[in-house]
């Protein structure tokens, strides 16, 4: 191979690699659906803690969870049809999958065994999800980075206000997941 051909090949490789799609394909539907579910659950906890409600309504939590599950399944099917799955997408699915799985398992176990109260579980959820968002956001998505910052900030802020503990976490979940999801969705539609 001569030098001219080597140079042309290098230029072609460089062009492909620099223009390749390495971005995180944010699933805005998931952010909005699961963020809404989390916000509603936390809001209900606030209403109970502040005496506005006596107990949790199961349909109140189940209905948005079913909607979120249906949307997640639909989103999963859409992902299967897309032509390209970047390394960043793979990392995001692993990080979020493990984080959310661990948080749900911990919440379920601590609810059954009563090892930790509802406040601790909710605090871990916002902080854990916020940390995962921060890790992914730093690498490939400004909206996810902002969402993670809001979630972690809400977990810290809630510790300073026992009276509005769940309300602050609910606002954090809404601001850290639903708002970035909506921004991403609008941006994708434009």
């Amino acid at each position, binding site marked *: 191979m001569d*030098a001219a051909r080597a140079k042309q090949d290098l230029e072609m*490789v460089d062009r492909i690699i620099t223009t*390749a799609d390495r971005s995180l394909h944010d699933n805005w539907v998931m952010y909005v659906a699961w963020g809404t579910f989390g916000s509603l659950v936390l809001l209900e906890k606030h209403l109970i803690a502040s005496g506005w409600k006596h107990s949790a309504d199961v349909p109140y939590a189940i209905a948005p969870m079913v909607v979120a599950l249906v949307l997640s399944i639909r989103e999963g099917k859409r992902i299967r049809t897309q032509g390209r799955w970047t390394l960043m997408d793979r990392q995001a699915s692993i990080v979020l999958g493990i984080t959310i799985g661990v948080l749900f398992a911990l919440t379920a176990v601590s609810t059954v065994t009563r090892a930790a109260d509802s406040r601790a579980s909710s605090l871990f959820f916002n902080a854990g999800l916020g940390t995962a968002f921060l890790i992914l956001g730093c690498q490939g998505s400004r909206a996810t980075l902002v969402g993670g910052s809001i979630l972690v900030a809400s977990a810290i802020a809630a510790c300073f206000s026992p009276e509005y503990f769940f309300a602050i976490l609910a606002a954090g979940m809404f601001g850290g997941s639903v708002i970035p999801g909506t921004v991403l969705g609008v941006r994708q539609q434009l």
Partner: protein
Amino acid sequence: MTDELFLSRVRLAVVAELVNADWITFSALQNSIDATNGNLGMHLIKLVDAGYVQEAKRFVGRRPQTRYRLTQAGRAAFLRHVEELRAIAEQVRA
């Protein structure tokens, strides 16, 4: 000594596309590389046979979908080839 498999521009382009992806479907590769169906298919077979690229077939709904990902051997061979190309290009400058 450059890797003979990468002497084809289409094969080199395919591997360069796969470097930053977890997997890419045949149609997405075709759009990026701008090669004909048969031509791209033939080059992909050679890359798969060499163990540089992994092929997976499945159905999405009722439509068949073939997708590809780079293997560790393919990634190593690609990096080696790029180093060799750089060395050849540098020789002339020196």
